[in-house]
C-alpha cells in the first residue's frame, strides 16, 4: 500500500486520488468516514480520537498486505485522524485502485471494516450537553455507547 498514516492534520483527498492514479486501473474506490452530528439519537458536537501509534500503524500495514493479496489492488491509501475533530470532518480515508471496479470496491470495503475491527484507535463522543464519553466504555452500559 502506498500510504498508511495517522495524522492530526485534515485529510487531503487530492493526495489520495493522485496516489491511486494508474493507467492499468479501471476502478478507483474512495471511502471517507465523517463525523456525525448525532450518535444513537443523541446530539453530538464532535469526536476526539486517540491511537496507540506504533501498534496501529503495524496493524494497518497488516491490513494493507491483506488487501493487496486478497483483492489484487494496484494502489491503496489508509489514513486515520487523531485528535479533536469537528462535525463533518473526515476521520478516516480508505482508497484503492485496481484493474476492475469490483476489486477496488471490495478492497475499500474490507479496508474500512478491518480498521474498525482491529486497529487500536478509540473515539470519544463530545455531546451537545458538554459531557464526553469514550465509545465502548462499560461504565456507560445502559446508555448509548455500546
Amino acid at each position, binding site marked *: 500500500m502506498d500510504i498508511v498514516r495517522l495524522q492530526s492534520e485534515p485529510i487531503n483527498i487530492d493526495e489520495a486520488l493522485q496516489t491511486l492514479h494508474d493507467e492499468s486501473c479501471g476502478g478507483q474506490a474512495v471511502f471517507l468516514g465523517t463525523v456525525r452530528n448525532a450518535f444513537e439519537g443523541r446530539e453530538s458536537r464532535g469526536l476526539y480520537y486517540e491511537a*496507540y501509534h506504533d*501498534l496501529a500503524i503495524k496493524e494497518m500495514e497488516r491490513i494493507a498486505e491483506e488487501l493487496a493479496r486478497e483483492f489484487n489492488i494496484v494502489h491503496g491509501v489508509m489514513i*486515520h485522524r487523531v485528535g479533536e475533530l469537528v462535525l463533518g470532518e473526515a476521520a478516516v480515508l480508505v482508497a484503492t485502485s485496481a484493474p476492475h471496479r469490483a476489486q477496488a470496491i471490495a478492497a475499500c470495503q474490507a479496508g474500512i471494516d478491518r*480498521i474498525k475491527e482491529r486497529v487500536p484507535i*478509540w473515539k470519544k463522543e463530545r455531546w451537545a450537553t458538554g459531557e464526553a464519553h469514550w465509545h*465502548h466504555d462499560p461504565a456507560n452500559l445502559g446508555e448509548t455507547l455500546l
Partner: protein
Amino acid sequence: MAKITALFFSYAADRMSGRRRQFDIGDGATIEELFDQALAPTLREPIGAFMFSVNADWADRKTVLHDGDELAVIPPVSGG
C-alpha cells in the same frame, strides 16, 4: 525484579488517572499476574475486557514480561 512500563488508552487511561505507569514485577511474572495484582482494582473490569501488546506486538495474557518491556492495555477499539 524487572521494571516494565504500562500504557493505558481510552477509558482505561481515565480509570488509571494516567496514560503511562511503571511497575516493578517479579521475575517470570505474566501479564495476567500483573493485571490481577496491580491493575484490576483500578480498572474495575475483568481481564477479558482487554487485549494486550508487549513492545507493540499483540500478546496474550500468559505472556511473561521482561525488564524494559512496554505493555499496552487495550480496550475494545472504536476507530473509523
